[in-house]
């Protein structure tokens, strides 16, 4: 903890009741309506799913060490990558930041007592559990082999696996994310503390707001498309079956109309987290706050009109392809602006490199690479060659794992003292952050080359000339697995043996740091009033001095 804090902030008030101390019975947890407890429920759930999805892909990478089939059969392999995809996308990535960090922090950051609909919040967790139960049941019954994309007519008429149960699981968890979205939108609109105007909101709150809009508007389309898949599979309604005049391409349009915006559901909150972390550890106001807000909102908006870039070779009209290609280039602009602004935020800062900052800088590098390779995929002639190959696999892992998972870890470390009241071991955390960065690149960079060489995705066996790069990728995966196991170990350790955390260990400006660590059940003892923007670390015209204390913190009296 290199950031100085005043003695009164370091003082811990042990007799103060925290949300963690408000009962230990099963009922006090599973019937909790406190957003902080629900966030913990979500965190435990997604951690379990993260390791389940990780276990599946470990077997896949093990199989790919050699060109021949030697670990699992083709059918098992197909079930493994499908399980990995479904679990990681819907049960880890989509809820990762919004439902855990977002749930915990949104009311704290806007000075509210809870979210707008606390019971709906709990209900949405139960929906996620219901969906998760179906997905795990699918696995126990023998798995599903359609890929996470459920393409028709394979999923509706040809697959001999448990498509219905898997689709229903995803259908249920979809409603969970709609409920969360509705809840967050209402919370931001109705429960901001007095004086907390829209343009005084922290960027993390803005990102959650934009994400919630996408969740509410896009997820119903996913629900509809899965419903149609279930209807055709079980009731034999002719919807996608060309033999009855149906259209298999229709499913792809519906599916990607959700699943492309879903990428932004996963990455927008990550951008929010990184904005909080970089400003705090650079002791700088964020560069171009209003542009950052507009960029978030325009990514969320334009993101609805680029789904066709998943379908350039699908048989869609080539003219539609050109339009989608154009819009895909356009949607990359606001992301580029954000990268430039984060970089500019470092300028003339007082930068320190605690673990959250290392994770955030890792995000910056990996997200930039993921975004740039997105330009390759937006160019139709290149996409024709590399779509459905490992190039695409590498690209979206750079965005979703390199980007979102790095940011999730940045946020988890940054707010760990606030959430648990304990400090994590800094040395271990920095080591894990660096290991994760290198492990990630070793795993996924070779896949760009594999993809350009022409190795298709979802291949159980492959031509032998691809082996070198696959061995490299699988070796990287072992490093990455170790890097993910580390935080699991030391964060659990810190829950019991970690040092007690002060209220504001990073000397940050956000409202969430004005209350106790861990916060009391009602969040704030008195209603905070805000008359200042979110990142007032230094006077506007003067760069921060070496021992600069924040000029004004949100919720602090002038």
């Amino acid at each position: 903890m290199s950031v100085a804090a005043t003695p009164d902030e370091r003082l811990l008030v042990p007799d103060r009741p925290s949300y963690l101390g408000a009962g230990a019975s099963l009922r006090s947890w599973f019937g909790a309506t406190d957003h902080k407890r629900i966030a913990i429920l979500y965190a435990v759930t997604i951690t379990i799913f993260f390791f389940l999805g990780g276990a599946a892909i470990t077997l896949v990478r093990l199989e790919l060490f050699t060109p021949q089939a030697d670990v699992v059969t083709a059918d098992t392999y197909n079930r493994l990558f499908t399980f990995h995809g479904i679990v990681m996308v819907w049960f880890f990535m989509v809820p990762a930041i919004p439902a855990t960090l977002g749930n915990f922090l949104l009311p704290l950051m806007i000075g509210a007592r809870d979210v707008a609909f606390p019971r709906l919040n709990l209900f949405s967790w139960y929906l996620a559990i219901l969906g998760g139960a179906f997905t795990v049941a699918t696995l126990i019954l023998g798995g599903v082999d359609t890929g996470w994309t459920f393409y028709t007519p394979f999923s509706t008429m040809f697959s001999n696996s448990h498509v219905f149960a898997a689709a229903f699981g995803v259908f249920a968890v979809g409603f969970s994310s709609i409920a969360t979205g509705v809840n967050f939108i209402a919370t931001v609109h109705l429960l901001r503390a007095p004086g907390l105007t829209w343009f005084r909101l922290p960027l993390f709150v803005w990102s959650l707001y934009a994400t919630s809009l996408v969740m509410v508007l896009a997820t119903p389309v996913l629900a509809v498309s899965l419903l149609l898949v279930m209807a055709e599979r079980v009731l034999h309604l002719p919807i996608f079956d060309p033999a009855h005049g149906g259209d298999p391409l229709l499913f792809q349009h519906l599916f990607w109309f959700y699943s492309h915006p879903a990428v932004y559901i996963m990455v927008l909150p990550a951008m929010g987290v990184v904005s909080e972390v970089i400003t705090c550890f650079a002791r700088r106001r964020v560069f171009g706050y209003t542009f950052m807000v507009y960029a978030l909102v325009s990514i969320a908006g334009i993101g609805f009109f680029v789904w066709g870039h998943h379908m350039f070779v699908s048989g869609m009209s080539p003219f539609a392809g050109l339009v989608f290609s154009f819009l895909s280039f356009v949607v990359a602009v606001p992301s580029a602006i954000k990268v430039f602004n984060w970089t500019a935020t470092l300028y003339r800062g007082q930068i320190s490199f605690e673990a959250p900052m290392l994770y955030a800088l890792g995000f910056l590098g990996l997200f930039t690479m993921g975004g740039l390779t997105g330009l390759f995929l937006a160019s139709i002639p290149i996409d024709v060659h590399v779509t459905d190959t490992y190039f695409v696999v590498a690209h979206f892992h750079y965005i979703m794992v390199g980007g979102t998972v790095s940011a999730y870890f940045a946020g988890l470390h940054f707010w760990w003292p606030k959430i648990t009241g304990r400090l994590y071991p800094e040395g271990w955390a920095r080591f894990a952050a660096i290991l994760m960065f290198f492990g990630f690149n070793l795993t996924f960079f070779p896949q760009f080359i594999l993809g350009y060489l022409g190795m298709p995705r979802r291949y159980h066996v492959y031509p032998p000339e691809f082996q070198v790069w696959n061995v490299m990728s699988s070796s990287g995966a072992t490093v990455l697995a170790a890097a993910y196991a580390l935080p699991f170990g030391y964060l659990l350790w810190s829950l019991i043996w970690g040092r007690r955390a002060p209220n504001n260990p990073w000397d940050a400006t956000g409202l969430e740091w004005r209350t106790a660590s861990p916060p009391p059940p009602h969040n704030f003892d008195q209603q905070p009033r805000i008359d200042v923007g979110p990142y007032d670390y230094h006077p506007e015209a003067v760069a921060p001095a070496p021992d600069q204390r924040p000029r004004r913190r949100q919720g602090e009296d002038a």
Partner: protein
Amino acid sequence: MSAFFVPVSASTQAATTDRLFLLLLVLSGVILLLVFSLVAVFAVRYRRGSSAPRGAMPAILSREFEIGWTAATLFVFLFLFWWASSAQVAALIPPAGALEIHVVAKQWMWKTQHPEGPREINELHVPADTPVRLLMTSEDVIHSFFVPAFRIKKDVLPGRYTETWFQATKPGVYHLLCAEYCGTDHARMEGRVVVMPAQDYARWLGARPEADGLAREGARLFVSRGCAGCHAPGSRVRAPRLAGLFGSTVPLSDGRRAVVDEAYIRDSILQPERDIAAGYDPIMPSFRGVLGDGEIVALTAYIRSLAAPEGRPAAEAAAPPGLAPGPPEGRSPAMEPGRALEGTPPAGGSP
């Protein structure tokens, strides 16, 4: 078969794609280097407590900066779009007179058929330096025809035709892979594309026992499946005549117009009630379940051959020199537009 970093380049499209890829690689390398070095320089120079001067923030306003780099980024991206799309638009339409090969995909094999008749499984022999147009359909799920060395890929769908084309530049043997996940043996749905010099290809073709025209097979089917009963010239049933039909635009009974192409003919055979040609009664039965995909392909080729200029079958016109299926007198009368067919009432013989 492929190099270490870049796959073998064996088609005209491969050269275009690689050029574009290289451009993007250099450009993103520059952007990446810019971002990484700025972050690195700032991280070192402005680390906490460093002696680098901070002082008053520079007078340049963030607004000007933001507008500047938003405009610059947009400009670069639009340039990329223009470059990539113009390459794409140019490659959209196959050159006239391309060799036409039919591809039928099924779990988990590729079936290909040459215009002269030879069929192959999981193999495709093509002449070098000749444009080849692929007309593809699937018998079950969605597959994707992918030849990395040619940088081409196109999904193959059930119930409709998709097409793509290439012009191979280098004789050799290349991977043919399925790129759209299609079930258990997706990874084993592989074949090879053999590119041969034109003379070798002609020799290979001539040596195939089934080197009989696709259109000729279609002509046989036209009779044996009963199409001729209504559609042959001189039939008493009032049905559209097919000579010269292919490639033309026909008015439909509901006022729309349709271009007669492979997809239209397929639909007319399988779903005849959908697009009724103007002036005819909807009396044709559906041939769904009666005709296989291969048979529809052959019938289409036959109908197409009836559209060739000066009464010469298209199959002959499209074939590379020296590969025509024999002199006209040795050919089936079915291939001559206007000639009567065996087994049907002779033209003009009706009462």
